[in-house]
């Protein structure tokens, strides 16, 4: 009698890239899984609904991949109050925005994870959010008659995350705490791909199951330095000048932005090709201490 072995969930980069399709509702974790985000741009996907923030969201909008944005924050931190491509596309009516905030977004994601049509939330009562997002319904709760917001389930087709480590079976370990929204996105999503710095043994995972942050991601891709220009806790810090360069180029919206998208996102076929363009010296300088 032949016993079948447990299937690996470790897949190659191009196979992972082929999971990405036009028109999907795609959720992007924090720090953004930039290697997978660059594959979206490289493949020139269209009509995406993107749950995301900051540079990753802005890059996808600048590349023409996005039709609808579900975002609680589309800024770039100090000095970049509003992400430039997001601002232009929103003001020009080229993208639709599903206006929300953190508590509303996580309520919708939790409703999806729990298989409920909606979950109630208080944050946002009294604000303009239910006026400008007609999917948010003001309800009178049946217990105390309080006014609350019913947030409909938000169901990503695919969630893309970056984490420190995983074994071959999708047991994922974030270092120093997961990005705040990663677990919400994973639980709500039909499927999840996690790109990781390092593949570790199943024995390592079993030695301390408390540290497993996601048990059973659908696919795992090995992408060292895969969050660049963002940080990956336990591995490297943010490449601040690179992020600034993107936002400066995006603000001007000219040849420099086009060059940035072409040189860093469209031309490199693989993550390795991208890292060659960044250069080993620059990457090694991003050490944590």
């Amino acid at each position, binding site marked *: 009698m032949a016993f079948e072995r447990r299937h690996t969930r470790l897949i190659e980069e191009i196979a992972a890239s082929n999971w990405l399709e036009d028109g999907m509702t795609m959720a992007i974790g924090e*720090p953004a899984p930039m290697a997978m985000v660059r594959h979206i741009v490289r493949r020139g996907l269209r009509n995406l609904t993107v749950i995301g923030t900051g540079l990753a969201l802005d890059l996808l909008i600048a590349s023409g991949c996005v039709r609808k944005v579900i*975002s*609680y*924050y*589309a*800024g770039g*931190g*100090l*000095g970049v*109050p*509003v*992400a430039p491509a*997001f*601002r232009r596309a*929103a*003001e020009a*009516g080229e993208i639709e*925005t599903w*206006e*929300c*905030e*953190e*508590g*509303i977004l*996580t309520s919708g994601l939790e409703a999806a994870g729990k298989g409920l049509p909606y979950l109630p*939330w*208080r*944050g*946002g*009562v*009294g*604000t*303009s*959010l239910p006026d*400008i997002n007609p999917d948010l319904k003001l309800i009178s709760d049946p217990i105390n008659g*309080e*006014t609350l917001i019913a947030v409909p389930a938000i169901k990503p087709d695919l969630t893309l995350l970056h984490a420190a480590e995983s074994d071959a079976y999708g047991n994922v370990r974030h*270092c*120093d*705490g*997961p*990005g*705040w929204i*990663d*677990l*919400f996105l994973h*639980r709500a999503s039909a499927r999840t791909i996690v790109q990781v710095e390092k593949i570790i043994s199943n024995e390592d995972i079993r030695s301390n199951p408390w540290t497993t*942050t996601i048990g059973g991601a659908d696919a795992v891709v090995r992408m060292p330095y895969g969050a660049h220009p*963002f*940080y990956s*806790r*336990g591995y490297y*810090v*943010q490449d*601040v*000048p690179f*992020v*600034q360069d993107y936002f400066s180029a995006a603000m001007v919206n000219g040849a420099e932005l086009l060059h940035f998208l072409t040189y860093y996102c469209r031309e490199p076929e693989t993550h390795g090709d991208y890292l060659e363009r960044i250069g080993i010296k620059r990457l090694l300088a991003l050490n*944590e201490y």
Partner: protein
Amino acid sequence: MTIECSPQELMAVFLARDFVDGEHLQVGVGLPVPEAAVRLAHMMHGPNMELVFLGARMNVAHLEYLPLPAFGWDRRVVRWAESFSDRGHRFDQVKDWSRRVFFIGGIQVDPYGNTNLIGVGDDYRQLKFRGPGSVGTPTLTTHVGRYHIVLNSHTARTFVPRCDFISTIGWNDGGADARKKLGLPGGGPKYCITPLCVMDFSEDEKRMRLRSLHPGVTLQDVQSNTGFELLIPDEVPVTELPTKEELTVLRTRVDCHGLLRSGLNRPSAEVIRE
């Protein structure tokens, strides 16, 4: 002895004095003045305060330096965490946020402390200026014990009679029971602080009122840069100046690169790379 400091340093010291030992102080992204203020208070008089930076909860009163993070929220910030509130549970204990203090900015602020991070324009589908979005401010301001509105500039474009859109409710249409009527458990906005002055909200009407003018600023400066009528008390004092000790701690142990001192002119890439 005269004390010279930038308006941002004055704002940070004023805020720091508002925090009581044992409180939980939560700061989001892009608000350097509150970031400096909570660190300063923690060092000066708050050894039992808890600082919450994007879900990393920490007490770091034992550290010699608490430099402002001019970088992403990577390990240099979270290495001091005692717990991560974010493991998929960010808002699962809002019932306990009565001792938590929070800070917000805004594109627009109205006389009752309602604020707008969504955008400017009559028609939501055709905004003249698209803002960054509400972040977590609606939920945070619904539940925290109190919050402060902290702005980097004071103009009539920001202080408007009515916000085009409201992302956080302050005192709604006014009145001490305004928040209770909406079922919002948190204590609402206490101060609105700008580079020109400190404002608070009147006890009954909850309308914005001038509390103090920063040194060198006139009543006329404030009124001509505010797009609605502020309540003006009979006597308007000058905002309390930092002590020498406060300023020394702020400059040498918190704002080590002089971001506040320079009036928020961004430090160079080399400096923030550190």
